[in-house]
């Protein structure tokens, strides 16, 4: 691929917009995963008694199990959110940017 096409895309304000929006979204979701997971790890290390508590009188289920299940489900939902937005909105914008760059070739 020619350097000219790359340079053209780099100068396209839509490219800057795509990169900023997608990057912000990706880092935001990553930050959620990091914070939730490492808080959980620290809770395991420093507050195991809290995780051993049973929030419902009628059930054996502990906060630790709920926190684990919550992470499996919510992290997967975050991947779903990312894939939907990246494969939809961001890829449409991406296609427009590439089309614009190749149009100028003609």
């Amino acid at each position, binding site marked *: *691929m020619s*350097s000219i*096409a*790359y*340079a053209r*895309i*780099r100068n396209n304000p839509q*490219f800057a917009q*795509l*990169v900023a929006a*997608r990057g912000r979204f*990706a*880092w935001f*979701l*990553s930050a959620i*995963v*990091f914070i939730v*997971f*490492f808080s*959980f*790890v*620290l809770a*395991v*290390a*420093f507050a*195991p*008694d809290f*995780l*051993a508590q049973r929030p419902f009188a*009628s*059930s*054996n*289920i*502990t906060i*630790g*199990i709920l926190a*684990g*299940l919550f*992470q*499996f*489900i919510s*992290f*997967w939902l*975050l*991947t*779903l959110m*990312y*894939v939907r937005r*990246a*494969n939809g909105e961001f*890829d449409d914008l*991406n296609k427009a*940017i*590439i089309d614009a*760059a190749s149009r100028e070739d003609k």
Partner: protein
Amino acid sequence: MRALNPVRSLALGAGLFASSAFAGDAISQTAKQPINLTAIGMFFIFVLMTLAITYWAASRTKSTADFYTAGGGITGAQNGLAIAGDYMSAATLLGLTAMMYTRGVDAYIYMIAFFVGWPVILFLMAERLRNLGKFTFADITAYRLNQGKVRTMAAISSLVVVCFYLVAQMVGAGQLIKLLFGLDYGIALVVVGALMMVYVTFGGMVATTWVQIIKACMLLFGGTTVVILAMTQFNFSFDELTTRAIDVHKLGTKLLAPGSLLADPVTAISLGLGLMFGTAGLPHILMRFFTVTDAKEARKSVLYASGIVAYFFNVVALMGLAAIIIVGQNPEYFEGGDISGAIIGGGNMVAMHLAKAVGGDILLGFLSAVAFATILAVVSGLALAGASAISHDIYSRVIMKGKATEKAELRMSKFATIGLGIVAVLLGLAFEKMNVAFMVALAFGVAASANFPVLILSMYWKGLTTRGALAGGYLGLFSAVTLVVLSKSVWVDVFGFAAPLFPYTQPALFSMPLAFLATIIVSNMDTSRAAEAEREAFGDQYVRAQTGLGAATASSH
């Protein structure tokens, strides 16, 4: 897979087993189970099916692109299943079930650590991997750096990861097959090595992918069936299951609370980092991202893979809990019929005993066949990743400087596969009686410390230069290996010293930041003209990484 402690407990169990068999005491009676015909029959069907697929795949494996990446034509759903198949090994099924059975919720916490790398790989790496890579992840790290030097380094650390992982899998395989099928350790190793060589040399990535897909489906089906049958005994009530489990388990109510496993925060964080970023640096996992058509499909693969992995971990957790009552209270599964004694075949047999208890010999046979198939799928993926580092990176790009013909490179990749297969069998035989747990720690440690920092910086940081990459990569490799050697699993368990010099099991918390620091400092100090050009080249690479313009496309047939 990738279960660190599970692999460790698997390997440890196997190791203890082997040594007691060696001593010729009473336990050795169970070292080799009677030949299990149902299991062998079912496994035979699996082998026939995969060989038929390999035959079909061989006709579609003509170019190097076909061999390394199945021509880049795999869909997101297929790749997601294959990634899950690559990631969930026999240690996941057997080791994690056993861990849940003995330690309760501690094992569940462990599984979360194994899962949590996937969302991060998606958010930060998946699309860039696909847009920049072609056959190996060194294609990305060497994209704008010195091809010869950076590829050599990437190939060395890839081969270190692959070899240690392969040996750990082979030793586990031999011990497991001895247990499940009643075959000799040596014969089991040769069967695994030979089948792996046939799949990979003839069918390349197409065959490997389908072996992994079929195995993932078998694993999901087998695990789900066992759990459903087991849960009928508890009216599908989690509370009934756990109440009865708490009643009989020696941990009592602590069964459902975090225990001692991750009580030390440094261990916990180091393990979390090692698993999270180790996964993102495993060459055979990274390679799977080059098999899909585009970034869209690469993202979808992670969505499918992480969904399957999350589901299966929860299945395994339920299996472990159900086994506490169904297996743990049944004298039939204990040495001498004493339920306070040792489980027949060792702790890793818990999942198998559960299958037998709820589904008879048929389900036991099926699950045994699944375990064997799992080993084959994992070693095939590893061998292919190792072969591509040898043939694509070292032979084609470094030695022949890109002038090798496609035919010669393809031939080299097949020789490399056969070579790796032979090495794996020989090392497997050599390490039969050893505790190989350290090899898995090493594989993850090197992946997180040597591969991951250079890879992520090459994608994200303009300032990376060849000197920086070499400094960080080699330092990461060296420090990860050194720390593992000084840790308990080698210093005490292998060399027999009284106390470890490095008190933790996972080196990542120390070796990974070291690699990052070295890469960044050396890159920043690098004022050479080459470094200037490398920084310049980031602009074009960045556009390609973000848009996929100029990315390797699927080959047409």
